[in-house]
């Protein structure tokens, strides 16, 4: 049957794809729509190219970037900052979130201060970070981690609070310690929350790395953004933004794949799931 499909006309293949993985087809359609809408808005609102360049100009600039080997070292720097910052931020965030989730008292005392600390714009504490972590990549990683950790904390706490108290009581009846209750129920119940937190953290990590580089950097996509901005090369700016977006999108999709492997217990029968909701 597949053999037959493979020999069919392109239209047939797309119909086939539409049937098997409709989201791919719609995703591509959406991309076309976005680019089209972009062109339309530029035309409609009469936006000068210095503000928003035409997609074709961006594509050219993007292509120029992608064919320059040096560009990848900038991508590498920023990607490293994002990943390291995200990793540190999530681990620290999980740790803090778990502690607060375990001791109700901390939720009422420490948590509000964490919220308060989080409202401080990172630029304001950048000088301190530079003292402690230098001018290199490390200070950007720290800034990224500082930005990324918060959603993980908030969602981890909310998730642990959402654990069913009946399940907790069941464990307690077998003399479970607070730590065992955490390990066997609370963290599991928190998983859907934690993954949502990580999803937000990824996006904040991307922004964090760029903010960190804006504070002062010698390399990275944020550095390139400043350069493009200084040259008033809007197409170039947008090309970098697209690379950033692609990084964010890929990390999000990866995270989603991991989530689906770990949080499986509220999935029903595949066939039915499509029928409903």
């Amino acid at each position: 049957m597949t053999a037959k499909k493979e020999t069919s006309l392109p239209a047939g293949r797309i119909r086939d794809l539409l049937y098997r993985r409709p989201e791919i087809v719609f995703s591509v359609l959406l991309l076309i729509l976005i680019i089209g809408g972009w062109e339309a808005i530029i035309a409609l609102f009469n936006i000068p190219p210095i503000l928003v360049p035409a997609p074709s100009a961006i594509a050219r600039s993007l292509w120029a970037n992608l064919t320059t080997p040096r560009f990848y070292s900038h991508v590498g720097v920023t990607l490293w900052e994002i990943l390291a910052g995200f990793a540190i931020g999530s681990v620290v965030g999980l740790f803090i979130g778990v502690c607060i989730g375990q001791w109700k008292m901390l939720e009422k005392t420490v948590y509000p201060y964490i919220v308060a600390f989080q409202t401080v714009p990172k630029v304001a504490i950048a000088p301190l970070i530079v003292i402690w972590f230098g001018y290199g990549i490390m200070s950007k990683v720290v800034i990224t981690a500082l930005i990324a950790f918060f959603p993980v904390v908030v969602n981890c706490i909310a998730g642990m609070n959402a654990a069913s108290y009946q399940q907790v009581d069941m464990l307690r009846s077998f003399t479970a310690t607070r730590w065992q209750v955490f390990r066997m129920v609370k963290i599991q119940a928190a998983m859907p929350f934690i993954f949502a937190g990580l999803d937000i953290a990824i996006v904040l990590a991307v922004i964090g790395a760029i903010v960190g580089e804006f504070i002062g950097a010698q390399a990275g996509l944020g550095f390139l953004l400043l350069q493009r901005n200084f040259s008033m090369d809007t197409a170039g700016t947008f090309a970098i933004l697209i690379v950033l977006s692609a990084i964010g999108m890929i990390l999000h999709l990866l995270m989603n794949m991991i989530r689906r492997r770990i949080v499986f217990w509220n999935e029903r029968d595949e066939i039915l799931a499509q029928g409903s909701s």
Partner: protein
Amino acid sequence: QDLQKVKIGVGGSNFLNLTYYYVLLPGPLGYWKEEGYDVEVFPVSGSAEAAQQLAINNLDFAEMNASAIIQANTEQKLPIQAIITNGTIGWGLSVARDGPIKTVADLKGKSIGVVSLSSGGIPLLNSFLKTNGLDPENDVTLISTGVGAQAISAFNSGQVDALMYWGTATVGFRNAGLELETLSDPAWKGFPDFTFSTVKSVVEKDPAMVESIARGMAKAMVFAAANPDCARKLQWKHYPDTRPTGMDEDQAAANDLSLISVILSEQAAAAELNGNGQVAGASVPAFGTYQDFLFDAGVLTSKVEPAQLVAGDDAFRERINNFDKAAIEAQAKACDFPG
């Protein structure tokens, strides 16, 4: 042999391009290495941050606004001292070239775009307006238009009638195609602007190092003045990511050349202040008058002895400028760098 590590921060610009050739090029040209130093240059987001990093010896030197140097001394009792002034105030009030506004007085009732309402250009603008009979509070509206494209679109769309920006920013506007006429107060030419500086204790502890670093910069300044295009080529070669993008090669070269020509003319104006024909130096009287101006404008709450604001003595500055100018110029003219 082991090179001594030196860190220079460039305040107020988080992106280092040809504008800052005087700290970027001595390295590749080998001027610092031959005196035994390995210099790293960092962008630092603002002059205030640069002062902070200097204060805690996280940086050995910083490029920062003269006003920030004075403020650090008067407001923070932080003895930061000027070594080389890289330019005089190049700020200008730009209006449309063939527009209705010809003089400052024509700005009554108009809007002026500034980078931000807390920028260093505000005291300058206010006094400029006052000398021309306008009340800065009531006669004009200030709008913070940020940097780059945002300012240009504000001007193009008529949201602001004038732009009060520093020299290279104004060049950027012109490069982007704005037809501008720039008005400025002649007094500004006497005020130092971007300045290479450090804390007093560094000058006292290791004067030889300070001299060497400053001398390397002085050589680069002579080099660039002799052959700006060679400086541009060097910059592009050694800092390929700082070259303008989004335009063809010729356009990029032209833009960078006009940029460096502004820098060089500001540099020449700064050399004027030195008074003795020295290429690199800082002028005590110029810092004194600028301090007076800032105090009158209400930016400062106190003043210090002007000599406190400048590093070393005349002999110190003499040693900085003590090198074979002609040889450097010849090197620049030849512009013979492989690769």
